[in-house]
């Protein structure tokens, strides 16, 4: 088995290190980084635009490049989150929560360095898992039936309540508002349209990209436009030293990155879960585990490295169901699969044996790509920070245009531009009155998944809820969820009891 692995690695390296493939890998990760940094323009748009070009390339080079754009954008996505509080990609939204406060404390360079490190750890461990356990992980993905999804998404919703800053009531209200917004669209089980008011643009529901970019990105543009105070990120001097994390930072960040990797790797395998959820879930895990949760939202390094490690790990493991089962878990994977198919390669259980050079070449190119990204990103940090010297009156209108372009380009539907602007307004009002944005987003994404999988489970089990505890995996996750609620309630009570004597 291990000898097998060695020969497979060698075969893969042979493919990945061919000058052509190396060049396309570099091109892919460079493009990905740039696309990731520019707010709004996401990997999906870039891959869809470049997909026709790849039809004229060797299949291996083509896939290596498209994949490079995909995981490269996760590296770049956090840059704008940290510097401008505007996520470059939806999956970097969680990084705003603590990344931007760090930048306002003059620690933008440190945050960017930590993110590059965290992303590298997440990506690398994700690849290691893929190399060693692809078939096993594919079978884990298959073990996740409707009851397991229901359990996991319920846990996610509870995490959404935990994540919220300040008032629990406001957090719950936003989760509920998110769930409500998630119900808009065609009901999966009856085909009946809910709250669409007959608009064809709403039959598929509100676009998740538009909601995320509106709530996190556009709202920041509005806020900056109305805020006259110099309430902005700054970096006093750009020196090599100012980018180095302290020993204390590393001590906190390293285990967080590893935990984030774990969360991301598991969620990445599951079709439909995605790296945005992975980032938020690992953020709330860090907050839960922290001895002092009040540090979160004020520049906690764990809150930056964990989500970044998670979304990069998720991006790598997302290839597992695509390549080994032939089931794309997200639209970007569907395009990559399409690129394979047009070259006559059927992704699926037989690909490992029929096209080992392509599979292992791709996996090893991920290593090369992640290494390139690390090397590429560290020197770029200085350049990105200089972006802050551009006057906001020039920078933010440009960001507004980029976000609108990016949202429009996904489906070429002008309705989505209005959606993103409207959610920008909602996000702005929510910030003014202290409502947690992340809670709304998680409710919006997870609510429909909870409903969909609950109803599916009920159909399969013929209405018997016993199935949730009969299946070991779903039972285990539900126990975790109950524990999470228990601990939250218990610690809440303890804090309240502890607070009384002080009050007296």
């Amino acid at each position, binding site marked *: 088995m291990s000898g097998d692995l060695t020969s497979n690695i060698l075969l893969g390296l042979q493919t990945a290190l061919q000058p052509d493939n190396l060049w396309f890998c570099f091109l892919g990760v460079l493009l990905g980084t740039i696309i990731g940094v520019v707010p709004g323009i996401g990997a999906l748009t870039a*891959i*869809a635009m470049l*997909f*026709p070009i790849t*039809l004229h390339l060797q299949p291996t080079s083509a896939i290596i490049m498209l994949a490079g754009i995909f995981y490269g954008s996760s590296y770049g996505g956090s840059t704008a989150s940290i510097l401008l509080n505007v996520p470059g990609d939806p999956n970097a939204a969680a990084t705003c929560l603590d990344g931007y406060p760090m930048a306002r404390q003059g620690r933008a360079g440190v945050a960017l360095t930590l993110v590059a490190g965290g992303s590298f750890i997440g990506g690398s461990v994700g690849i290691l898992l893929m190399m060693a356990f692809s078939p096993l992980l594919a079978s884990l*993905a*298959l*073990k996740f*039936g*409707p009851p397991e999804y229901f359990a996991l998404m319920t846990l996610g919703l509870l995490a959404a309540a935990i994540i919220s800053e300040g008032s629990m009531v406001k957090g719950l209200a936003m989760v509920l508002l998110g769930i409500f917004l998630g119900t808009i669209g*065609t009901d*999966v*089980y*009856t*085909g009946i349209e809910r709250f669409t008011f007959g608009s*064809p*643009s709403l*039959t*598929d529901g509100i676009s998740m990209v538009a909601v995320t970019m509106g709530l996190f990105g556009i709202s920041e543009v509005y806020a900056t436009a109305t805020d006259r105070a110099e309430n902005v990120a700054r970096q006093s001097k750009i020196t090599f030293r100012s980018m180095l994390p302290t020993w204390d930072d590393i001590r906190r960040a390293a285990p967080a990155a590893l935990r984030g990797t774990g969360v991301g790797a598991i969620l990445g395998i599951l*079709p*439909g879960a995605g790296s945005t959820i992975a980032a938020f879930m690992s953020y709330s895990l860090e907050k839960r585990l922290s001895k002092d949760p009040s540090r979160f939202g004020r520049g906690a390094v764990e809150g930056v490295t964990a989500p970044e490690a998670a979304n990069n790990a998720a991006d790598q493991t997302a290839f597992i*169901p695509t390549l080994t*089962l*032939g*089931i*794309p*878990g997200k*639209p970007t994977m*569907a*395009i*990559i*699969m*399409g*690129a394979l*198919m*047009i070259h*006559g390669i*059927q*992704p*699926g*259980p*037989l690909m490992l044996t029929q096209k080992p050079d392509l599979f292992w070449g791709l996996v090893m190119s991920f290593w090369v790509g992640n290494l390139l990204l690390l090397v590429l990103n560290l020197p770029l940090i200085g350049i990105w920070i200089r972006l802050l010297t551009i006057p906001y009156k020039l920078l933010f209108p440009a960001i507004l245009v980029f976000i609108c372009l990016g949202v429009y380009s996904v*489906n*070429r*539907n002008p309705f989505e531009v209005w959606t993103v602007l409207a959610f920008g307004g909602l996000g702005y009002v929510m910030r003014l009155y202290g409502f947690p944005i992340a809670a709304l987003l998680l409710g919006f994404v997870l609510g429909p998944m909870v409903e*969909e999988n609950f109803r*599916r489970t009920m*159909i*399969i089990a*013929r209405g018997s809820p016993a199935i949730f505890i009969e299946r070991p995996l779903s039972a285990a996750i539900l126990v975790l969820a109950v524990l999470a609620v228990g601990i939250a309630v218990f610690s809440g009570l303890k804090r309240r009891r502890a607070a009384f004597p002080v009050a007296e």
Partner: protein
Amino acid sequence: MSVKFSATRRGVICGGASAGLLSLALPALGQTAWPEREVKVIVPFAAGGGTDLVSRLFAQKLSDRLGKPFFVENMAGGTGGSIGSRELARSTPNGYTIGSGTSSGIVAAAIDPGPYNPLRDLEPISRYGATTIVLVVSPSMPVRTFAEFVAYAKTKPGLTYASSGIGSANHLTGVMLAKQAGLELTHVPYKGEGAAITDVLSGTVDMIFVSLPLGRVHMESAALRPLAITSAQRFPMFPDLPTFVELGFADLIVEAWYGLYVPKGTPDAIRDKLVAEISAIRRDEAVLKQLIEQFTFDARGQDDPEKFRAYMEAELARFRAAALAAGLAKS
């Protein structure tokens, strides 16, 4: 119902007549001139999907043959690709915006005639080709043949079948089989075929009527067991697999086809040229090989727009009946 149908047909005839008038009025346009510049091909589904890949193949060949770029623009969304198809219907009918459509547009129109009906809103040109649907069961089911399946399903009413969504072709095939074979089957809808087949692979759901391009790898790796196919004749790639027609269900033919449409009022000369070009491309050896091997097509297209239209009308009627039987049809 019948009133509605004749109305649709009259609309079609009017559309054809006005197209004829337009081309009389504009004799200079067409014949040798078209295309003088690039042509947009609207694909009403996402990049990388089946419709997209087939459309790109034909667009590439059209560019090669006609010397002007034919570029694909993806405009996904809506049931059966209604958002992109409606955009195509609204485009100027001058031959510089054309588009693809699939059987899913007809299935959607059979359920809800309101928002979009390719026969009413667009002018069909030709059928690129079709793939088909296979009944596959999870290997945990103790059946090897279709006869065993029917016997087993009778003893166990309520076996589950997954589909890519309510009112999809995968769903309606299940409805048709349940009705014609007198079985009680439970429908489990998903968002997309990929998610649906996952739960069949794990044995959580008993079976799926899956489109051949997606099901193929799992049939080849024996992860799923095929029982019967919905094509009219046996499929070249799986010659041992019986058709439902052979098994006694004469009406159970479901094809997933792809075709080319233009907006109504596109000049005759341009339409004729497109018909001739698509026909020639489909006879290209390399294209044929790609269609059969990569897209799992049966390579039977349709180059006669009138026959294509008649076929679509028959399909619409058949799916309308199935949708009514399933209680899904909207007026």
